[in-house]
């Protein structure tokens, strides 16, 4: 086995409440130091895949019923989130989820839960250096911050935990285009400067594939395509379905799209 392998998801199936099957045999590999992006439409199972890795399925009554998830060679499927976060896997939840009634700095301090009692002042400085707008909001209740600030806050909060593997669930959700660019630039910087491996779930395929090294495409609970990000960007199907441009570069007429036929081929 290659030694730069960080996480290996082997053919997992996830079932919610013992009846609803969401993932049907998903396999993927994350190498150390990379940004891996996971694309797919709504309901494809991207978030579920992330939650299966971070252990957050459990409180939602979900379970990995088949297959295994190995982190640095150790099986972590169906472990509790307390254990998994302490191994260095931190998930940033979709839709921001700040602690509304805590101040910005208190929010960041919750990020130290995995290593309680250790000094954290340096980490606070580091987070503030990545996310400068947070400095001015330090003592404000997080519930009163703007969407962009909140996205920075929850990412900074995760960074406080010294993650080895950071799982980002739709960081661009509902943000202005220039803010999206800023957030992605910071993600890239974190990956390069902190050597944090990042798994990025995104609807904004364009931005995601620009900074990622490798990409997976999911449909209906299955991985349907995987390739280096640069190749994915050139792939005609991905271009049409996720990047919004046709192969010729011009927008096609809707009647010519016939996406249902081409999608069929993947499954």
């Amino acid at each position, binding site marked *: 086995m290659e030694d730069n392998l960080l996480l290996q998801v082997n053919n997992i199936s996830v079932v919610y409440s013992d009846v609803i099957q969401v993932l049907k045999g998903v396999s993927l590999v994350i190498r150390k130091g990379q940004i891996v992006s996971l694309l797919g439409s709504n309901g494809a199972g991207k978030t579920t895949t992330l939650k299966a890795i971070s252990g957050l399925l459990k*409180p939602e009554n979900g379970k990995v019923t088949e297959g295994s998830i190995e982190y640095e060679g150790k099986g972590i499927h169906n472990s509790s989130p307390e254990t998994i*976060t302490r191994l260095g896997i931190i998930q940033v939840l979709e839709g921001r*989820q700040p602690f509304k009634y*805590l101040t910005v700095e208190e929010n960041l301090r*919750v*990020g130290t839960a995995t290593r*309680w009692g250790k000094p954290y002042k340096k980490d606070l400085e580091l987070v503030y250096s990545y996310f400068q707008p947070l400095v001015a909001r330090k003592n404000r209740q997080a*519930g009163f911050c703007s969407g962009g600030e909140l996205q920075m806050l*929850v990412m900074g909060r995760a960074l406080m935990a010294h993650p080895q593997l950071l799982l980002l669930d739709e960081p661009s959700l509902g943000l202005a285009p220039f803010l999206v660019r800023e957030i992605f630039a910071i993600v890239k910087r974190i990956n390069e400067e902190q050597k944090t491996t990042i798994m990025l779930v995104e609807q904004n395929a364009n931005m995601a594939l620009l900074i990622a090294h490798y990409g997976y495409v999911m449909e209906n609970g299955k991985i349907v395509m995987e390739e280096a990000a640069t190749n994915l960007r050139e792939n005609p199907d991905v271009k049409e379905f996720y990047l919004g441009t046709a192969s010729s570069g011009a927008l096609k007429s809707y009647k010519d799209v016939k996406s249902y036929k081409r999608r069929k081929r993947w499954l």
Partner: protein
Amino acid sequence: MEFFLQLSIQGLSVGFLYALAALGFVMIFKSSSVLNFAHGELLAIGAFIFLAFSVWLKLPIYLSFLFTLVGAFILGFVIERLFLRPLIGEALIEVIMLTVGLAAMFKGLLLVIFGGNLFSYPDFLPAGLTIRWGAINIPPVYVASFIIGIIFLSIFGFFFKYSSQGIYMRSVADNQPAALSLGVHVRRVFAMSWAIAALVCAISGIILGIMNGINVHDISVLGLKVFPVVILGGLESIGGAIIGGLIIGVLETFTGGYVSTSLKEVIPYIVLVFILLVKPYGLFGLVEIERV
């Protein structure tokens, strides 16, 4: 005028006592949204543990006090572990009914072990604590209640505001999935809130025991007074619990002093009704931060 001052000081010390008891109630509610109907019994248990240590085992007072606090803290952990943890994930009403059951069980156990008689502690508070100033005469237990109330309320205030553990506890109350995603040990936070609640209950139980004597029924009924206190102050607010406790304490004492002692028991509820008419979430209840 002297009478007014006397009543004010007494009312405030009773208020601090209520505030301390309410603090435990708010803690449990904040972290796990459980209304703890066994609160009065927790007070009684604290009072009786102290009785056992100080009168039966004849340990020095400070040791008995320390042991009672430790014992109550452990008891809180045990209650959470044995009774509440298996119900995590079940509907809230089941957990609340469980606390009703716990109340009955604890009361029964206390009656079996100690009986229903009225006990009292030896007179251990130093007479120097008595405040005598003109016609004002405050018995030592009220002064002690005042001091202990302020000390413990500020300890817990600082704990929640500044310590990492306190911030983790608040984060669970605020957004449980997010706290889980950051590795906050949510079950430990629940256990911790029960332990702290049992601890502050024990303290207020002991003070109540000194004031009125120790009787299973009396103390557990008094424990129910946390309901008007916390609803008045706002269920989620620790600051509200303190203010609510003080208001109810002072009101009660004034009614008892100026109007009639039998009205004293009713007045908190009457005031409660009027305050809820104006502020349905209590004085400091959580006003939902909503982003539109």
